[in-house]
């Protein structure tokens, strides 16, 4: 499997980034929910630190994914009717936007409450906004709403992939699967 994308399939780096981002996002909801259940204290802080670090990983990997996409002009193009191509492009754009907005809103939310954001303690990200209680509360709402929007768009994304695979029986799903060949 080539590193770079080809006209037939995504390369190994694009696939790796796609699936790594999926695997990082899925536990995020459960970690945050588990932390909410805990009394205020060290354990809760530890879980939230994991949540924040994984979120920052998602942010960095998504930026890498977009950067790699821009550098890889020869990637597999959309298949289907013009309206389907437009819908796919819009859906992917929206999904990228939400996947970026989600960690950024969480980062800003931490900054507004004067909590440091690090990548597993390796290094610290600067505060995005100044300490502000009201802003923190507002961003908490934003972070939740963005999550549900992201899930909604991701569900459409998955359904579209399954539609391609099982109903249209084209190679769209297979070209992003980790170990498949076109």
């Amino acid at each position, binding site marked *: 499997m080539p590193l770079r994308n080809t006209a037939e399939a995504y390369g190994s780096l694009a696939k790796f980034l796609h699936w790594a981002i999926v695997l990082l996002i899925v536990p995020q909801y459960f970690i945050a929910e588990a932390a909410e259940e805990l009394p205020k204290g060290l354990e809760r802080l530890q879980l939230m630190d994991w949540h924040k670090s994984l979120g920052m990983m998602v942010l960095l990997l998504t930026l890498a994914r977009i950067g790699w996409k821009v550098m890889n002009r020869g990637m597999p193009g959309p298949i289907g009717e013009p309206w389907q191509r437009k819908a796919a492009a819009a859906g992917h754009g929206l999904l990228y936007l939400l996947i970026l907005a989600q960690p950024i809103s969480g980062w800003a939310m931490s900054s507004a*409450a*004067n909590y440091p954001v690090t990548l597993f303690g390796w290094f610290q990200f600067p505060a995005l906004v100044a300490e502000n209680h009201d802003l923190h509360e507002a961003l908490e709402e934003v972070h939740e709403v963005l999550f549900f929007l992201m899930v909604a768009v991701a569900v459409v994304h998955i359904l579209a992939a399954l539609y391609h695979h099982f109903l249209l029986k084209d190679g769209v799903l297979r070209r992003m699967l980790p170990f498949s060949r076109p």
Partner: protein
Amino acid sequence: MVLLTALALGPAAQDAAAVATAWTVDPAHSQLTFHPRLAGGEFAGRFERFDATIRFDPADLEHSSLLIVIDLLSALTGDTDRDAALQGSDFFQTTRWPQGTFTSAGIRSLGGGRYEATGKLTLRDVTRDVRVQFRFDPVEPSRGAARMIGASNLRRLEFGVGQGDWRSTEWLDDGVRVEFNLALRAAR
């Protein structure tokens, strides 16, 4: 030369020289902050209220002294849960020990307008020796305005700040830097 001047001016000047210049702190333009490291990230908290009794003359360090009394109830970090935790028994336990006190025992020059005060810090009824490095800037000597900017690296566990889970330094470092930036005015 100092001796000659003192002799020439008589006993009154000698008495005055025995106590270095007294300074009052302008709280509106002064900050006292603390900088813990949590999970590898640093954040800042501040003490909104503190009293500083400062006698300081770069030419008379022997008679210079610092006394800082911190109202621990005024500790703020930007998060109400964390602020409440700081007041609780795991940290300052302000219901029993509402104040922190630093009293200098001696001040020496480090050169270049920098100084080091050694003295005793009391928190939670535990007194330990600490060092405070600071800079003294005579901002406007003619108007009696000056700035004192400095820091001290404390070990919170020496004072028992951090009980229970917080005795561990795995997530919350033992070292906490305390910084101050004081706007001073010469008392008359």
